[in-house]
Every structure is written in structure tokens, then in C-alpha cells.
């Protein structure tokens, strides 16, 4: 079907306006969430529950993925460095890859899949079963109960999980590089200590903090607005899927900008 140029421009404009509207709504949602972080009372018990859910209950997953990521890096790094006779740099290669990039990003993906999706589904179900309306009609602010605890828990839990991933990943690399492939343990850690600086650690920390915000923000936003993208089980399913996809994409895009601009 042939479209007139005017119709094409109109459709492009409409799409642009739609995206701009959604981005604006998400921005307002985040600003409101941060605002309520600073307006007491904070629901401390809810925040602790969410830290338990997002953080503590993700530890096994993070340990597992961290260990295997480090082991794969150890293996790949060893064979690549061995070609140029530089296996002494295996430690720094594994540590820097994990601390600067893989740790925050893979932790972000894992938490998105495990907790981000659950946050969207939980809040989405509360939306379609009118539980959020019930809170509003009590004259209370749902953000205090549903959004702020998740956001703060994400900000606290993600750096801790990332740190855990980093440590386990480095030991995974050690296990393969030193114990299996024969690199000297002293060299593995010695070179690492000489190459990894506090700035590298902070880079990973800032990234993981921002990923904590992204995951909980997107999960809460998608769940909270479930009614606007389809009702019932289908609405919750869409919200959950969109939350995982959008968080994952945003983690990668934001990671690029943080790496290129800030560091």
C-alpha cells in the first residue's frame, strides 16, 4: 500500500510524540519516587523485606553466575594470553573485565530476570485487583509502600551483589587459571593488585548503583501502569515482559554511556 509523504510524516510524528510521552511519564515516575525517598515516614520494615527479596534471595544465583563467568574468563584469557606468552596478566585481565563490566552488567541482568520481573508482576497484580486503588482511597500514597522500598532496596542490594559477583568471579578465574592451567597463584594476584585501582572498583560500584535504580524503576513503573497496557493476566504478562526487556536494554545503553562519558 502506498502512503503519501504527508501521512508518513504524520505517523512518524505520532510515534515520536508517543515515545516522548512515555519517556516523560517514566521520568516523572522516577522523580516522584526519589521525592518520596526524602519525605518521611520511610517504611523501614518494607525496605528490609525488599532488600531480602532483591538481595539476599539472589545470592545463590549471583554466586553461581559469578563463578562460571570467572571460570570462562580464566579459560579464554589463558589461551589468548598464552599465544603471546603473557599469562602473567591473566589475573588483571579477569579482574578488570569482571570489576568494570561483567560484574555490574551480569548482576544487573540476573536481578532483572529474578527480581525486576517479580516486582512488575506483583505491582501489576495489585493494580488489576484494585489493591493500589484501595491504598489511594485510604488517603495514603502507594509510592511509599510499593515503589520507594523497591527503589532503595535496589540501590542497596545491587552494589553488594555486584561485589559478591566480583569476588566469586575472580576466584573462579583463579580456580581455572591457577589450579587447572598452572599459572602461578602469586603472579595471578600480584599482577592484579598492581593493575586494579580504586577507580576501577568505583566504576563498577557506580554502574551497579545505577543498574539498581534502572531495574526497580522500570519494574515498578511497568507494574504500576499495568492498566494502561492491557487488563487482566495479559496485562500483567505484558508488564512483566516489557519490564525485563526494557531494563536489560537500558542497562546496556546506560553502561555504554557511563563507560564512554564518565570513565
Amino acid at each position: 500500500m502506498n502512503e503519501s509523504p504527508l501521512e508518513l510524516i504524520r505517523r512518524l510524528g505520532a510515534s515520536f510524540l508517543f515515545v516522548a510521552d512515555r519517556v516523560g511519564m517514566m521520568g516523572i515516575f522516577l522523580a516522584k519516587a526519589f521525592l518520596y525517598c526524602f519525605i518521611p515516614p520511610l517504611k523501614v520494615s518494607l525496605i528490609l523485606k525488599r532488600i531480602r527479596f532483591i538481595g539476599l534471595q539472589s545470592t545463590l544465583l549471583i554466586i553461581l553466575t559469578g563463578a562460571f563467568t570467572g571460570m570462562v574468563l580464566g579459560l579464554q584469557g589463558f589461551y589468548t594470553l598464552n599465544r603471546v606468552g603473557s599469562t602473567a596478566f591473566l589475573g588483571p585481565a579477569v579482574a578488570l573485565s569482571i570489576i568494570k563490566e561483567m560484574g555490574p552488567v551480569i548482576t544487573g541482568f540476573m536481578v532483572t530476570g529474578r527480581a525486576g520481573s517479580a516486582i512488575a508482576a506483583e505491582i501489576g497484580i495489585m493494580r488489576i485487583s484494585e489493591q493500589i486503588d484501595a491504598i489511594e482511597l485510604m488517603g495514603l500514597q502507594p509510592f511509599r509502600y510499593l515503589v520507594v522500598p523497591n527503589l532503595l532496596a535496589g540501590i542497596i542490594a545491587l552494589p553488594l551483589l555486584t561485589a559478591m559477583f566480583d569476588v566469586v568471579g575472580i576466584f573462579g578465574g583463579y580456580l581455572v587459571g591457577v589450579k587447572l592451567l598452572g599459572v602461578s597463584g602469586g603472579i595471578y594476584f600480584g599482577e592484579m593488585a598492581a593493575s586494579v585501582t580504586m577507580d576501577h572498583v568505583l566504576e563498577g560500584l557506580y554502574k551497579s548503583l545505577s543498574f539498581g535504580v534502572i531495574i526497580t524503576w522500570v519494574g515498578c513503573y511497568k507494574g504500576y501502569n499495568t492498566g494502561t497496557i492491557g487488563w487482566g493476566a495479559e496485562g500483567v504478562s505484558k508488564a512483566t515482559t516489557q519490564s525485563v526487556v526494557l531494563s536489560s536494554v537500558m542497562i546496556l545503553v546506560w553502561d555504554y554511556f557511563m563507560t564512554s562519558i564518565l570513565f
Partner: protein
Amino acid sequence: MIEIKDLHKSFAGVKVLNGITLDVKKGEILALIGGSGQGKSVLLKHMAGLIKPDQGQVLVDGKEIAKLRGKTLSQLRRRLGFLFQGGALFDSMTVFDNVAFPLREKTKLGETEIRKRVIHELEQVGLSGEEEKYPTQLSGGMIKRAALVRELIWKPEIMFFDEPTAGLDPIIGQTIMNLIDAIHERFPFTGIIVTHEIPKVFDIVKKVAMLHEGAILKEGSPEEIVSSDDPIVQQFIKGETEGPITYY
């Protein structure tokens, strides 16, 4: 206390409310009746400020609810209670915590006093011993009773009931109606009940409004509704399949 003036609302181009004008006086319970899909729940949600009208006003104590924001809206809402069709109990909390929630969040009562009041109120509706259960472990009637207690425990001035007996057997339905009546006698809130329970609801209200095709077709006392010669009203209250109402 609640004034609705020329209220209009459409969803996706479909007109749901078409110029509703209605008054509910302080302490009065109004029954809002009408067929399914006639806009009763939508009208109720306008009164609670959950939906904004396309045109017209909903005034609560002279204040236009759609224009209230922030603290003023919260203050007004703290005077309202709303019994949702599905109860809207928080499914991650036990029955006890659900009922205690408004007291914990909206009052400065201590935990001992809250416990005492929650246990007492749950006893009144026959839910003693069910305190530690989660909403998914309750029957439809129990959910409605627990939700009713949660809304009424802090004595709201205005109470909205969205089909409080929907999906319940006739005995439990009657129990819920009796409960509403009994609580209204203890503290005379202003109430609006959206229901299909005819004639049960006529026993507990002084005023009835029938909604048809987005407008108020007939308004008056239960006796006036029953004796109305409007064929639509008669067909509806008698539940007849033949007549001017054809949407079934």
C-alpha cells in the same frame, strides 16, 4: 454531602455516563441500581475521585473532587471508605494485617489497642479465628466481610460499596446487607451502594436511583421505585427477559 452535576464520561469513544445529576445527603444511604454495563461502578469511582469526568462535577462537601490534589485530596480521601467488588484485600498480608492496616497507617493507636479493635471487629462479622489466614485462603463471603471490616474499622464519613454481594450465595448476601445496615445504625455514614440485589437492598436504604443508558432514569424511595409505572424500571426490578431493555 455529595452532589453530582451533569456528569459525562466516555471510554474509547463509548459514552458511559451521559449527564448524571444526583444528590446524596449526609447520613443517607443511596442504592444505585441498573443493568450490567450501565456505568454504576464508573459513577461510583467518579464519586471517590478515582476517575476524572470528561464534563460535569462531583462535589463532596462543596469541593470538586476532580480538582483536588496532594494533601487536600488525601485529607478528603481519609474520610472515605470503598468496598471494592473483589474486596481488594492486600494478598501479601494476613486478614489481621489487612484490617489493621488503616489503623496502623492512619491513626496513632498503639499495637495493643489496634489488636483489641481488630479482633473485636472481626468477631462482629464472624471471622474470629481467621485472623492469620491470607486472602487466597478465604471464601468469597469471608473476603467481602474482611474487606468490609477493613473499610469500616476507622469509621469513614462516606462509604462506597461496589456490588457488596456479587458472587455470594443469598444467605451470605443477606448477611452482608444486614451488616451494612447494623454498622450504619452504630455510626450513620453517608453511603452509596451499587447493587443488583433487589429487593434486599430496599430494606436498608431510604433512596434509590436507577441508572439506564448512562443517565438517571428514576430516583426516589424504594416504594416509589417499586410502584413506578416506567416499563424499564418494572422490567428491571422484576427481572423479566421481555420488555424495553434489550441489551441482555
